[in-house]
């Protein structure tokens, strides 16, 4: 990884963290409502995976703000969506869980656990059919690997040798239920082993994630067929703002925080790329300013007009 890319990944991780902290603050202040699932703690995976899978289509879950921004969505447009404004990426219709930008090959933002996986299989089929080589990446959590949609997708993708990268972001908790209480093992890659090549990475280490996703995408581009990548991560916050998060011990959380992806990347920038305090703080300040701008933009953006309620239910309005 060259210095420029390392800096870019670091910057987007800091931006993501700052964005999520601002979202939390504005949720508490009542500017953001509904379900808000913060990515704090998982930025290393979110940013590095998006940067690595630069070309190709991405499908993900409701915990997607940081991925969307790393993919190229404007923080302003994402924050405005969280504020429910017309200038939001989904014009205030979708909110936190439903960020879409086909121009960036980013297909959300699905709030039904596992629901996006079969869609990604279909997309991968279409890309193969269309002769595109870049493939599709679908991100889901450990909880989704217990559902039927997941197993059906493994089967179809492998039977048809589709250009699809399955990525399980394993933070070990489905809301309050620890994965090992509802699955026979902690690493969900085991479930994919009969179907395809599997890889496991430390999701708290952005460089490792980046390299693994690059390697996987390269194989997919060479016609290898589907690959399963599991990244062990840790969310520092509750499942959503509605979750009191009383089921994990402080020690467990502290161990996670000791592996903080942003701190690891910062240390690497210093030791490997020779960045000093000033260079680091310039990046941090730039990220903070971008988030301040995003919040100011969202706060002053327009409310959608009630007359537009039925916009986009159909392409063609009838009756």
């Amino acid at each position, binding site marked *: 990884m060259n210095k420029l890319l390392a800096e870019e990944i670091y910057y987007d991780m800091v931006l993501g963290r700052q964005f999520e902290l601002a979202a939390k603050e504005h949720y508490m202040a009542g500017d953001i*409502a*509904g*379900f808000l699932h913060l990515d704090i703690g998982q930025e290393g995976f979110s940013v590095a995976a998006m940067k690595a899978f630069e070309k190709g289509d991405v499908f993900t879950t409701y915990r997607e703000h940081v991925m969307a921004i790393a993919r190229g969505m404007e923080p302003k447009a994402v924050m405005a*969506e969280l504020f*429910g*404004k017309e200038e939001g990426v*989904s014009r*205030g*219709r*979708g*909110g*936190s*869980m*439903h960020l879409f930008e086909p121009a960036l090959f980013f297909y959300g933002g*699905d*709030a*039904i*656990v*596992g629901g996006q996986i079969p869609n990604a299989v279909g997309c991968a089929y279409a890309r193969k059919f269309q002769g595109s080589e870049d493939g599709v990446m679908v991100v889901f959590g450990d*909880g*989704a690997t*217990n*559902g*039927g*949609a997941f197993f059906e997708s493994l089967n179809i993708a492998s039977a048809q040798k589709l250009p699809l990268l399955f990525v399980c972001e394993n933070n070990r908790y*489905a*809301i*309050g*239920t620890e994965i090992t*209480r*509802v*699955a026979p093992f902690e690493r969900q890659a085991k479930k994919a082993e009969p179907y395809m090549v599997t890889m496991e990475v430390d999701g708290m280490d952005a460089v490792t994630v980046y390299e693994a996703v690059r390697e996987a995408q390269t194989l997919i581009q060479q016609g290898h067929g589907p690959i399963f990548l599991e990244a062990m991560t840790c969310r520092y916050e509750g499942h959503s703002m509605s979750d009191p998060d009383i*089921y994990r011990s402080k020690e467990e959380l502290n161990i996670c925080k000791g592996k903080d992806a942003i701190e690891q990347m910062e240390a690497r920038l210093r030791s490997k790329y020779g960045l000093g305090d000033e260079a680091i703080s310039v990046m941090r300040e730039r990220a903070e300013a971008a988030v301040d701008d995003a919040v100011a933009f969202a706060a002053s953006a327009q*409310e*959608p007009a*009630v007359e*537009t*309620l*039925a916009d986009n*239910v159909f392409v063609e309005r009838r009756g």
Partner: protein
Amino acid sequence: MLYREALNRAIDEVMAIDETVVVLGEDVGRYGGSYRVTEGLVAKYGEARLIDTPIAELSIVGNAIGMAMAGLRPVAEIMTANFALLAFDQIINHMPKYRYMSAGKITLPMVVRFPQGVSRQLAAQHSESYEQMLCAVPGLRVLAAGDVNYAYHALKAAMLSDDPVVFIEHELLYTKKGEVDFDAEVDPFKARVVKAGDDITIVSYLKMVDDVMAAVPEIEKKLGKQCEVIDLCSLNPVDYDTLEASVKKTGSIVVVEEDHKTGGYGAQIVSWAAEKMFYSLDEPPLRIAGEDVPIPYNRTLELAAIPTPESIAARIVAWAEGNGA
């Protein structure tokens, strides 16, 4: 007592008297339920009877059916109606049909519970209502708890019933306060006259009952007429006797529902009124329902997509004045 506490109490009491009752669902055990309905029960009854499942809705209901076949009385909790769609194969192809297909040799004494409806800005994949689909399937009892006392009694009755029951709750009702008359005998299939009145029959269910009640003072003031408000409680079967008595008295019927208007549940009630009560009606029935749009995130749009106390009052006043009611 809060609505969710009433539900908790109902489950607790039946679990205490019947060891065959088990509860299964996502986070129902140690976590105490997403809406705290099963709070504290795992400590009392253990993890074999409060089963934390994976996120696998089809299996939650499918397994509950198998448990019921084998002699248990399962209560399956689905986190929200939209997630119940993943279990609809089991809810529609299996749960209502085993008894019929087996000529009564198999019975499924089970309950599937979930909340539905527009809460607060949960957007299109977490805000819908599916009673209209469920009531279109013969073989399911469909109860809708809009009231704390009813919630307690009806859930107990559902758990004690030998037929499969879909028990619908509403996301915004869990913290609703109300009195529970523990000694009362409540028929879960009987509609509830929430407020008596002589001039306009308003039929509703779930949270819309509260919104109708909030609209009533304005309607009565503007029209100088009295509203009779009926909570259907049981959506299938419907207590048409209570509706008939009311319509005969008032000569009118208004149905207020939160689901989308096209194909919505209230059409069944209006269809009944048109077929059976035509000569008792002094004016055409009125249906107030949600718009035919997915539920948007933005609060203003969200409220524009469903009936509110203000829109209910305005629509009923306009209808009554336009029809000289």
